[in-house]
């Protein structure tokens, strides 16, 4: 599937929604844009896979295993989603 590149705002919303599906009470405003999400939200490996799945479902973007390093922080997630396929 080829999706239109997201605007940064839409991308940020998608990332936040996906994260809140895993950690419903996450205080995302306290997470710095360049902070490692797994550490900040204490996501284990299974949480991270669930996050990727939710993000892929919500955005229609194919997320390959090799893309995982690009999903480390809020900023890098937004960067990844707004670059197009």
């Amino acid at each position, binding site marked *: 599937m080829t999706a239109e590149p997201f605007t940064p705002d839409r991308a940020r919303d998608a990332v936040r929604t996906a994260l*809140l599906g895993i*950690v*419903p*009470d996450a205080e995302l405003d306290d997470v710095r844009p360049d902070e490692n999400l*797994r*550490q900040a939200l*204490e996501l*284990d*490996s*299974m*949480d991270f*896979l*669930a996050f990727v799945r939710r993000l892929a479902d919500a955005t229609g973007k194919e997320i390959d*295993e*090799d893309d*995982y*390093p690009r999903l480390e922080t809020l900023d890098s997630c937004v960067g990844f989603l707004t670059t197009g396929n």
Partner: protein
Amino acid sequence: MQWQPIGKPASIRAAANLRDYTATCRAFDWTAARAALSGLPDGGLNIAHEAVDRHAEGARADHVALRWVDRTDTVTELTYAELAERTNRFAALLRELGIHRGDRVYTLLGRVPDLYVVVLGALKAGCVVSPLFSAFGPEPVRQRLVLGGASLLVTSPALYRRKVRDIRHQVPTLRHVLLSGATGEGDAPALEPMLTASSPAPSLVSTAPDDAALLHFTSGTTGTPKGALHVHEAVLAHHVTAAYALDLRADDVFWCTADPGWVTGTSYGIVAPLTHGATLVSDEGDFEAHRWYRVLDRQGVTVWYTAPTALRMLMRHGDGLAEGYDLSALRFIASVGEPLNPEAVVWGQATLGLPVHDNWWQTETGAIMIGNFAAEEIRPGSMGRPVPGVEVCLLRRGAEGRALVTGGRVHPVTAAGEEGELAIRPGWPSMFRAYWNDPERYASAFADGWYLSGDVARRDADGYYWFVGRADDMIKSAGHLVGPFEVESVLLAHPAVAEAGVIGKPDPVAGELVKAFVSLRPGHAATEELRLELLAFGRRALGAVAPKEIEFDPDLPHTRSGKVMRRLLKARELGLPEGDLSTLEATR
């Protein structure tokens, strides 16, 4: 599908530590094996002496004991001599703080150099060390500190703020909390300046082989977590099993990926490689496929002990990923945590050029009991055969699923392929010697001269064991054994929850995921909002062992005595006929 056994080339068989399995099993004797250890001059035995001091006092003093990779890939090394000095300082510090022999010293740390210093230094001081899983939430941490009567805890500043600060006043025995690194906080001072100020002089306390050393908590199907207590003599089993089941040698660079909060992270993540005088690799970072290949490559790892979940996550990447890295130093791969599927064993052979050697053991056994060996054929999907010195048997099961005991007698299963509860004959040195303050539960773990593991297996005609399932409701998720009772108890503390039943839902990567079914109290509606609230509630209290899924179920099935029937919930989850629970375990 029928998986072909994987044979070993003659060159590997000839170089292995365990070259003749049958002959070694026949001749093996734990008393004679003690010759591989140094012991103390007065006949005592201390894990830290075997792991650190004996090397620091000898030819390996300047050999690298610990090679630590931090999150930014910066490497810090500690030689055996340096590790001896730092552990001396920590042991001296404990004495200055009034922490005595037998007192419980806890760690709540990720993989950082202080972890090794604290664990080994506390053992030098004769203290009992209890490592906690740093991904636990505050509730499991509080409960384990209280149960073991913790005197001192070492944790990191971040973990302190998240999990300890608010609960420390609920642990009446806890006198000191020290923070790893140079920065303290309020009444939790920093460890580093205290270490610098304390004495580096040799400080090992003489301990007897049966003196308490390690306290590992493990969850149960009912009741509070159990503290499995191990003694200093366990080091003999750590040493011998690492030689046989991990083929470990003094010139190896060994990487055990287990979290330091679980028994593997202590027995093989700290003790065993050091007793061999090897170099231990410790990676602070989280799992990430590129990162892990990079560690294997750059650190020149030769023996790698990891877990099925991690291997399955590596398998999700294309096989090309491994090709970008130089894995030529690697010569042996082993796995533990939950049963390793045959696909992963074969993937190792195809992609990394080495098959994965599955093995089996648990918190109570303290060391590997059953394994696949370097010189022996691997049968993909099998946990292998008993380690020399370990006597294993399968016992016929009764109506409750556990070993059938009639008139004080158990009933061994003898036919090949027949299922039974895995049992081990006491006598191996790393056997747990107590559940902390719980003699009744300890006694009930044995019957007719056997330790009952709670795992069900079958044995083929050649003596290879095959995991079938748990005999009880324990959940094996991503290498962790999760007790449903602990999870249910937390959910029941939520005002909306009337009842909860927690099961392991099969998952292709983690083996099982923790899933909770809850019924609600009158006046509460089963809304998506409440479901998310309960997910968050569980995570806040439990951390990584919280349910990943919650489903509302107004009709939770009950036993006649009124308990929620987890097995029936699991049958429903798997879409099995509810009347036929016997097929449950065959699905694993």
